[in-house]
């Protein structure tokens, strides 16, 4: 212990709905060292954001409920803390930024007041003192003429500048951990890179650890030290960023990586996708949740594989029975993919007599 700043162990978060329990996060474990940058990747609805909100204990009430596991932060289980202690941690020790900076700032409060708020809450600074700190924070996140900007309202700022303000708010009290939940999704592509660079730079400067949640592999490749890939509420693979991109071992990671369009690819070649949709988390399938979509699937996949280190790689963990680097397995997967494609083609040609449009579902 003590090596990690944050250690999430077997976290389970369920949402109670009329139809039953949605297992949004179902046994997630990961850890992050001080100053480290961890990327959490996965498609929509795989539990990334819920994991972040569970760490902050800000799940929507009363539906959300943490059903099990532990979140050790500085050797202290956040799930056991009373609400008042949790309020000291939020903003003080852990900062968070959200996807949409347009809706995350209070439209009736000046930017300076909003940045200064965390300082007043946690450091009990006077309003003059907090304004002075707010100006220097605004400068640090790269907003020119900060002293004048401090009295502006959020609607006078552009999207990228608002996200900069959000970063300034989250980092105001110099937290040890920053959770960034899709920080660039709502932004212009040209601004995305700037914001990522800013987060990376400011966090290096402050020595802040970062959990960056995204569905964009490009974001992860550029700025993280380590990546955890999530699928259907579980972590399926985790490794250092370089290792994961060079040597993906889980079929889902493999699928994610091959579905990124590449510049050096032949033009008009088909983009590889992962067929199907993520499972319904109300009734997750027994065993590996990726099995219904997986080309590598075998009978053994009906039991859930454990998240285990690869032999010889203590830092590379995967939850899969199959060795995807085995040529025999690759041939098997390719054959299964081909038969699937043929089936679809057969189905569409038989349909082509009718004028129904071809649907690309399988």
């Amino acid at each position, binding site marked *: 212990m003590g090596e990690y700043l944050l250690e999430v162990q077997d976290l389970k978060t369920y949402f109670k709905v009329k139809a039953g329990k949605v297992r949004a996060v179902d046994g997630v474990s990961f850890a992050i060292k001080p100053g480290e940058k961890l990327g959490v990747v996965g498609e929509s609805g795989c539990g990334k954001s819920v994991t972040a909100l569970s760490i902050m204990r800000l799940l929507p009430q009363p539906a959300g409920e943490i059903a099990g596991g532990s979140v050790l932060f500085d050797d202290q289980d956040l799930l056991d803390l009373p609400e008042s202690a949790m309020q000291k941690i939020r*903003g*003080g020790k852990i900062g*968070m930024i959200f996807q949409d900076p347009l809706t995350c*700032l209070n439209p009736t409060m000046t930017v300076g007041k909003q940045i200064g708020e965390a300082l007043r809450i946690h450091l009990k600074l006077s309003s003059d003192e907090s304004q002075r700190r707010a100006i220097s924070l605004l400068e640090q996140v790269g907003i020119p003429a900060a002293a004048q900007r401090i009295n502006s309202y959020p609607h006078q700022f552009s999207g990228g500048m608002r996200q900069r303000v959000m970063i300034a708010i989250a980092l105001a009290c110099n937290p040890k951990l920053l959770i960034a939940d899709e920080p660039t999704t709502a932004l212009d592509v040209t601004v995305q890179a700037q914001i990522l660079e800013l987060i990376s730079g400011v966090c290096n400067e402050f020595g802040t650890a970062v959990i960056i949640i995204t569905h964009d592999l490009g974001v992860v490749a550029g700025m993280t030290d380590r990546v955890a890939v999530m699928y259907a509420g579980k972590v399926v693979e985790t490794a250092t960023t370089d290792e994961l991109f060079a040597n993906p071992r889980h079929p889902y990671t493999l699928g994610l990586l091959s579905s990124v369009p590449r510049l050096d690819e032949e033009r008009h070649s088909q983009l590889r996708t992962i067929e199907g949709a993520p499972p319904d988390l109300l009734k997750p399938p027994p065993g590996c949740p990726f099995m219904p979509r997986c080309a590598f699937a075998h009978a053994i996949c009906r039991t859930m594989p454990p998240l285990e280190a690869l032999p010889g790689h203590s830092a590379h963990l995967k939850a899969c029975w199959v060795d995807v680097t085995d040529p025999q397995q690759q041939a098997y997967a390719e054959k299964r993919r081909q038969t699937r494609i043929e089936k679809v083609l057969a189905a569409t040609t038989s349909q082509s007599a009718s004028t129904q449009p071809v649907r690309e579902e399988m």
Partner: protein
Amino acid sequence: MDISEQLNSANVTVDEVEPFLEVAPALVQKRRSQGRIIFDRFLRNRVAIGGALFLFLLLIFCFFGPLFWRIDPTQNNVLSVSATLAPPSLAHPFGTDDVGRDTLARAMAGGRVSLSVGLLSMLLAIVFGIGIGSFAGFYGGAVDNVLMRFTDVILAVPLYLLLFVLSASFSDGTPKSVIFLIAIFGWTYAARLVRGEFLALKEREFVLASRTIGARDFRLMFRHMLPNAAGPIIVNATLLIGINIILESVLSYFGFGIKEPDASWGSMITVGQGIFDTDPWLVLVPAFLIFFTVLSFNLVGDGLRDALDPYMTER
């Protein structure tokens, strides 16, 4: 020297360019503050401006008029026949009532009562309504249920009857007691409104975002959410003044509000009601004052509603 030569010549010094640099910021459109935008939008609404102007003049009339019209509104003159029920004249522009009191002076005094009762009871009611509504909306669940059922109970009470009964036993006929009586029942709509606003606001992302910096419930409610609900609350408050002024007049008309000989627009109508055919000004003066005051408050309220609503398309 033609233009291209001028542009290309290297001997343009900084001093020659400098004046233009100073002008440049003035050319940039100045950003208007939120309040300024709302004020400008309000100014464009002529009807609302008319209402606001009337209220402004009424305020001067009621509070500064007595400085120039130095007749005591309570002083009667029963002994002189010519001084009672006198028609409008130079000495008494609005005539006198059945005991010889000057109607103009009483209209000013009554206006002071009506305006202060309307404003202060509105303030009390709004503060109480915000308290109840914000807790109900923010905490939801059982808190919401209890507070809103309590509000429903108050709403279900036959307001006028209860006010008559209560004022008959508890009111001492001063504006203060009337203010409290009206405020006790006036907060319900404000409470419902604030609750509705808070229910919607607490789902907004900026509330979640302020939770992530460790803001407590009170800060969330009153620093973050309340200012965002200010628009509807201000509109409701303006309309409530009109409602309260009418309530006060009705109470005073029936003799449960302001007690004689102190003046109130409502009680002035009572004095004139039996002799409307011979001395109509006794009813007309207070009736028109009530009518135009309430109308003006409603017009201003409507104007504010339009000015404060950012989604309101400009006509």
